[in-house]
């Protein structure tokens, strides 16, 4: 019952099942997200949001179901598969190294090395710090993170909003087309939440397909284009944000749909 709305899906999954022993966490879930779109994924605790996200990111393997990238069937069985397809995830606990600076964090795992040291194994090649800074600067500028003073600032000294922005910048910088955000504003104050939401909106303009998981209705209605509601591991419905309201979403999350009003999108 995914609403067949306007933009063509960039990443789509159909009929995803995931069982953990006796628990049937995902019962044939459909999900899609288009480029330049922010798709909110909502549901009560235990609805299967995080499981679905982990399946999309390759951290969990679906028991059944199909993946499509631009209508082409693909397989996602590991985080590396997902990364190779351009699917990136920003975890709730951020996964940044606080003792390293912004540039080092943004290039973690893909450090540029200086040319001319090919005779050494990669682990002993010197880092190209300048190139690292240039890349970091461009990633930060692309998302218009304005409050950041220097890409050489240690992450440990940054605010929660800045850290979230850095984590997002890293996901965007990894040549990704799909970025999933898990509760990106959960631990943030008002001003910092605003900052992160600006970054999320900016990703729409850079042509990313954004999956936005949150409990905060205000954030969701500010930032999303569509809202996919899960309940008890199944789709309830997908709404256009402009055509619905928080009350309707909350009812869908907690009680599901009244049969007479199904397929609202």
């Amino acid at each position, binding site marked *: 019952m995914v609403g067949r709305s306007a933009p063509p899906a960039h990443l789509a999954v159909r009929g995803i099942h995931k069982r953990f022993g006796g628990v049937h966490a995902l019962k044939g879930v459909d999900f899609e997200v288009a480029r330049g779109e922010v798709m909110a994924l909502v549901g009560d605790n235990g609805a299967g949001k995080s499981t679905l996200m982990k399946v999309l990111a390759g951290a969990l393997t679906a028991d059944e179901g199909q993946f499509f990238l631009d209508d082409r069937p693909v397989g996602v069985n590991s985080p590396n598969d997902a990364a190779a397809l351009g699917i990136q995830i920003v975890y709730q606990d951020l996964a940044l*190294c606080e003792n390293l600076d912004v540039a080092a964090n943004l290039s973690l795992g893909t450090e540029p090395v200086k040319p001319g040291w090919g005779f050494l194994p990669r682990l002993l090649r010197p880092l190209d710090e300048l190139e690292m800074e240039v890349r970091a600067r461009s990633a930060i500028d692309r998302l218009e993170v304005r409050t950041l003073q220097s890409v050489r600032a240690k992450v440990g000294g940054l605010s929660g909003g800045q850290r979230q922005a850095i984590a997002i910048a890293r996901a965007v910088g990894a040549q990704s087309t799909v970025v999933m955000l898990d509760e990106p504003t959960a631990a943030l104050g008002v001003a910092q939440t605003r900052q992160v939401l600006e970054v999320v909106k900016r990703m729409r303009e850079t042509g990313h397909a954004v999956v936005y998981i949150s409990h905060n209705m205000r954030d969701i209605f500010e930032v999303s284009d569509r809202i996919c509601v899960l309940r008890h591991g199944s789709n309830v419905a997908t709404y256009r944000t402009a055509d619905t309201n928080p009350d309707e979403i909350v009812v869908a999350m907690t009680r599901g749909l009244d049969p007479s009003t199904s397929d609202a999108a």
Partner: protein
Amino acid sequence: MTASKTDSSARNGRRGATQQKLLAFASLIVLVIGFSVANSNFMQVSNLLAILQAASVNGVLAIGVTLIIITGGIDLSIGTLMTFCAVMTGVVLTWLGAPLIVGVVTAIGTGALSGLISGSLVAKMKIPPFIATLGMMLILKGLSLIVTGTRPIYFNDTPGFDQISRGSLVGWVVPAFPVPNGVLILFVIAGLVSWVLSRTVLGRYTFALGSNEEAVRLSGVNADAWKMAIYAVAGAIVGVGGLLIASRLNSAQPALGLGYELEAIAAVVIGGTSLSGGRGTILGTLIGALIMAVLTNGLRVLSVAPEWQTVVTGAIIIVAVYADQLRRRAPG
């Protein structure tokens, strides 16, 4: 943090360590001045060289374990590994009559292999580093005794072996200050490892692993392999330490080794490297090793009983860690 943007490597994961390093360096200067005022013999060249020589083995071991401590691990096996490397060198040189270079390769190779095993225990089998290396410590101690039949192996048949530590290349150039080769090797290793830590991919991952291993894993980095590589590099450095001690004693003493790991860890901690990982420098460790050597030597020059030297060293470690705690509690 307003220095030039390109001079960045010096800042990685280390702003905090800088203060402690300065503190440690100041302590070193104060100690040297204090001892030389108290006794004029302290500043004699022969005594200064003795201090450096005494710091060389502990310094090399401490540099190795610094790498591991920055990843958030610990290695208790370095003392007995040093001895085992010395023993294996004795086996190939004295028993098998191999040329000197084979002995050198054996020492370093044995260290690297043992480090690789420790690293696998930690990274692959997920055994806590303290336990894994405690086990390795005992295994290596036992192996040294078994291989040698508890008797020392002497290097009398290998001419030049004692020159590895006791000879002086510097003495040819500067006859007035014949720095022993052991000390030269310490400084060369310190320079190399310092470069690796601050400039290379391996160094970057060493700090990253110590801060947030999960983040490293999620970045698509093979964290286990890198961790094993770091333990292996540390083991190879300990192998050099084994060469130095064997050369200095012109023998491999199988009963030696236990306790060296704690002295090395003490030097690391005094030098401002955090035992919780993610922070530390080689320069700090070098200063830490020098402080310990100066203290031991200075108290001896002042005729303080060796028992009291141990007490003072213990107190210094506690003070150093307390200073570290105070700084971390302070805002900013």
